[in-house]
């Protein structure tokens, strides 16, 4: 992106100028082009938001972060740390001495500076997402060393920064810019503009400012990770055509070039362990594939793959069945195949699906594919930890398939009475629980209004007077689903108002939503409840549920009276547990 292109992007008006999103840019130098590129890349990634960047104080990084923490209108902080922030003598503009006199004190002063910056960041992380780039510029020639040799003080300074970042990176709200990624975008030798640094205090070349701005924008506006990956088998999952060479002769072992398929299997296994759904769509003889999946040297066990669609029908039909079993839409899924024709057929039948070609025998191509897969499925920011629910997902989908089969066979009413369903309502949800915000921001179908919230906005909603929040956990004899619903709202004059209500699609058809409504009426003892509903392209299941209590499907905010609820509510068989008392602010 050139500076002109960045300015053009910034000049274009966002669709809704009211949706403002303020980001503090903390750096101790003149932000100049970094500010411009950060704004432009944020706009590119989230065109609906009206981003404005608030630069901090020149020469005072820690002070800028501290000031940002006390600014209520901010929604995120971007930090560009440089060596001069550890000690101003590590910059070019400071008059202090270089050489032995600096070496004797630098480690101590750097340690003190990192402590202050770290403490300010930790305070910020309580309420705001923070993205940080660690020092990106080369060291100045402050210490003695022959060309090609690194000075001991530089090594220790790098170690101090690495330890500082590693400690902070354990906090869910912090994202650290990957220096390897940055090096690909902006080579080290072309990062420093010494003239610009000395004349106006802006040390980054245009290219480097663009790269750092792009990286920080990525971290502050992470894309929703995909949820599932569907893979072909022959010449993708393994080398060879299993129907031709037989189950024992397909390969992925270390004899080149078959190991590329082994690396792909390892990646799939890692994704499965992180809660990503993995399925197979292959045109093959099912019995032959079944035999191949009994091989003990597979790098992802068959138990981590569901469903396995193996037959001779078009792959688009397999994908349709897999999406139905997973109950997710095509745009949340990647399909990997070595054949362009199969990818084209899948893309045509399932608009939005991410089609990725497996470039067998192309080492660089496979590495690029594995990196792309990692990028598409990576969780970032507050939701990046693998949760219990992630680990439960595959099991609950399998049990969900069994649930549906038995429900169809047994008749819904009798069936639900016998499944030993247990619901736990947790009114004392930890704000640090990443599953809560993740559910709110990724649930589409049973979602009261589709509103996505940042960590800061969520915090603000919950700190309001008379606000309440509870999470719902579910299990039955088919297995544990974990935390599957979140309800948030506040008490009003004559009842309660529900602002957020999301429920995982894995929990449908169990009358959990009815039990939630019953709980709201009983706990708060109110005659009616107002719901801040808004129709979205995908929240039909929520709309249909509420339509059962109204004369017609809702279009905007509506209320349900307790009498009406009780006259319409079907029998409920759940065993209900309240994990804590009602927790209401104020």
């Amino acid at each position, binding site marked *: 992106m050139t*500076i*002109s292109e960045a*300015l*053009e992007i910034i*000049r274009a008006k966002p669709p809704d100028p009211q949706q403002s999103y303020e980001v503090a840019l903390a750096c101790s130098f003149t932000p*100049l082009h970094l500010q*411009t590129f950060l704004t432009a890349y944020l706009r590119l990634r989230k065109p609906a938001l009206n981003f404005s960047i608030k630069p901090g104080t020149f020469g005072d990084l820690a002070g800028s972060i501290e000031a940002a923490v006390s600014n209520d209108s901010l929604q995120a902080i971007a930090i560009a740390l440089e060596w001069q922030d550890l000690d101003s003598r590590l910059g070019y503009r400071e008059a202090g001495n270089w050489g032995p006199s600096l070496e004797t004190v630098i480690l101590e002063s750097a340690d003190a500076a990192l402590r202050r910056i770290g403490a300010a960041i930790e305070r910020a992380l309580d309420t705001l997402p923070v993205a940080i780039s660690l020092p990106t510029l080369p060291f100045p020639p402050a210490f003695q060393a022959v060309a090609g040799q690194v000075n001991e003080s530089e090594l220790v300074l790098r170690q101090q920064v690495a330890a500082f970042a590693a400690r902070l990176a354990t906090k869910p709200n912090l994202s650290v810019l990957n220096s390897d990624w940055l090096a690909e975008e902006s080579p080290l030798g072309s990062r420093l503009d010494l*003239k*610009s640094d000395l*004349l106006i205090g802006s040390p980054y070349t245009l290219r480097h400012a663009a790269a750092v701005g792009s990286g920080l924008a990525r971290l502050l506006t992470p894309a929703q990770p995909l949820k599932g990956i569907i893979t072909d088998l022959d010449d993708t999952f393994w080398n060879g055509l299993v129907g031709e060479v037989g189950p024992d002769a397909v390969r992925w072992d270390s004899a080149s070039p078959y190991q590329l398929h082994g690396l792909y299997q390892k990646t799939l296994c890692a994704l499965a362990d992180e809660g990503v759904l993995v399925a197979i769509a292959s045109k093959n003889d099912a019995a032959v594939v079944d035999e191949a999946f009994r091989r003990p040297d597979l790098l992802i066990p068959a138990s981590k793959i569901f469903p396995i669609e193996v037959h001779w029908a078009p792959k688009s039909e397999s994908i349709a069945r897999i999406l139905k079993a997973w109950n997710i839409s095509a745009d949340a899924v990647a399909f990997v195949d070595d054949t362009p024709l199969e990818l084209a057929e899948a893309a045509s039948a399932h608009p939005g699906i991410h089609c990725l070609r497996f470039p067998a025998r192309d080492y660089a191509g496979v590495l690029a594919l594995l990196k792309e897969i990692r990028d598409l499925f990576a969780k970032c920011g507050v939701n990046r930890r693998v949760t219990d629910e992630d680990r439960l997902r595959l099991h609950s989908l399998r049990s969900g398939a069994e649930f549906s089969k038995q429900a169809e066979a047994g008749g819904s009413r009798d069936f639900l009475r016998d499944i030993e369903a247990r619901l736990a309502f947790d009114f004392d949800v930890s704000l640090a629980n990443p599953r809560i915000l993740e559910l709110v921001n990724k649930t589409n179908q049973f979602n009261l209004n589709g509103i996505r919230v940042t960590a800061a906005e969520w915090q603000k909603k919950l700190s309001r007077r008379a606000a309440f929040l509870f999470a719902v956990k579910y299990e039955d004899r088919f297995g544990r689903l974990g935390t599957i619903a979140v309800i948030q709202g506040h008490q009003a004059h004559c009842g309660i108002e529900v602002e957020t209500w999301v429920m995982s699609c894995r929990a449908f058809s169990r009358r959990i939503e009815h039990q939630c409504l019953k709980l709201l009426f009983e706990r708060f003892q109110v005659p009616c409840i107002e719901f801040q509903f808004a129709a979205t392209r995908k929240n039909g299941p929520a709309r249909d549920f509420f339509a059962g209590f109204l004369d017609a499907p809702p279009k905007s905010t509506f209320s349900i009276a307790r009498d009406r609820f009780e006259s319409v509510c079907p029998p409920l068989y759940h065993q209900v547990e309240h994990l804590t008392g009602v927790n209401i602010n104020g």
Partner: protein
Amino acid sequence: MDEIQKRLIKCFQIVFPDLPDAEIPTASQSSVPAWDSVAAITLLNVIEDEFQITMDLEMAADLDSFRRIEEFLQDQLSAV
């Protein structure tokens, strides 16, 4: 209006989006409040992009009006 003037006007439109087009040819640092030191450097960078030339940061102080920048560009580009 010659080609250089047209392209320079485009640069001014990018850096000073609120400046009316009619006022661009007479614009100067004293008549445009938004033309501060940051905008002056940004303008140089945008001109570098547009005309594929290298400009010295130290020129920012002298190139303080549309007319002066246009003259500078006429000199630079005719010398190529």
